[in-house]
């Protein structure tokens, strides 16, 4: 009798464990769960915006450069209806300097110039992305924007910066991001600027309602 009871309980425990594991793994894939906020300098638009976009980006990826222009255009058109948060997802296996670029951009952000530094990185992408040695462009852009390069270097080498980048990347991995740019528009996934525009159209009524 006890053996039968234990067998039943074991079967029940196994079922609970199996179902809950599948549920959690699905929840990860469908982006259900807490969203880690990006640092303030990487976030644009009001907190209350009805459409929230998270973009996983890599400064060395050409498709991300095109998407950045698209995002800028959307921010211009929809204004307060939109909030965009950038997350780093450097594809280091194909872009040897993208991790460095992400770190320098964040450190430029600490000095209030994330967007401007990011724009220069995208503009000069072809010059530095496949460089054999440490590209001089990183310093050049910092000087152009009148940023403190020594400070940026110290910040880029700090464990805190590395930690922030790693957390973005592991969050992306967990959500099944494997290409850049990947967007989550109010939780809905879109890969590339074409899908971004398609998905954003679905929220057109919300975006228009929030227009000033």
């Amino acid at each position, binding site marked *: 009798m006890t053996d039968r*009871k234990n067998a*039943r*309980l074991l079967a*029940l*425990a196994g079922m*609970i*464990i199996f179902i*809950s*594991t599948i549920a*959690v793994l699905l*929840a*990860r894939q469908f982006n*259900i*769960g*807490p969203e*880690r906020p990006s640092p303030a300098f990487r976030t644009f638009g009001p907190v209350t915006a009805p459409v929230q976009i998270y973009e996983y980006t890599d400064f060395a990826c050409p498709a991300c450069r095109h998407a950045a222009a698209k995002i800028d255009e959307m921010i211009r058109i929809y204004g307060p209806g939109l909030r965009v948060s950038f997350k780093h997802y450097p594809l280091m296996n194909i872009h040897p300097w993208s991790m460095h670029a992400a770190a320098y951009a964040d450190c430029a952000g600490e000095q209030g110039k994330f967007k401007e530094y990011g724009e220069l990185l995208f503009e000069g992408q072809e010059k530095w992305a496949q460089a054999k040695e440490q590209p001089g462009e990183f310093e050049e852009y910092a000087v152009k924007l009148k940023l403190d390069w020594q400070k940026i270097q110290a910040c880029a080498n700090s464990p805190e910066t590395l*930690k922030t980048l*790693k*957390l973005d990347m*592991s*969050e992306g*991995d*967990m959500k099944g991001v494997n290409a850049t740019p990947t967007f989550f528009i109010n939780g809905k996934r879109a890969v590339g600027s074409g899908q971004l525009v398609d998905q954003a159209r679905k929220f057109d009524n919300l975006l228009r309602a929030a227009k000033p």
Partner: protein
Amino acid sequence: MNKKPEKKDILGLLARLALGGVFIYAGLMKALSPAEEFGYAIESYKVINAQLSLWSAYLAPWIELYAGLLLAAGVFTRFNTLFTGAMLVFFEIMLAQAWFRGLAITSCGCFGSGKGNSISLEFTQNLVFLALAWAAHKYGSAYSADKAVAKP
């Protein structure tokens, strides 16, 4: 005729559900966040190295989630309450050593990435959870899967 539920059975059930709920929530919040985040929190207790902290961060949320679900359902209730109680004692030891060593713990890692309470508050909160584990161990076998499968 159905027996009228006794007060202690209700207390046991409530304690089981409350403690199970706490473990489910804690496990879920961590399982749905990057393991590195919880890994950094474990690292800040300065007991194990970064690599082991990360492995613990991969494993612990699932254990908490399963323990919470089995406890709430009342599967192997007596063993489960002892197991969750032992986990809580372990958490108390971790918190206490951090407290005594004056470590700067910005997030205890108890419920995922959210900024945690002070160590002393977390310590007191865990004492309440331990009391729930005791009540669930003593009176929690009523209205459980253990009881349901025992019926002929």
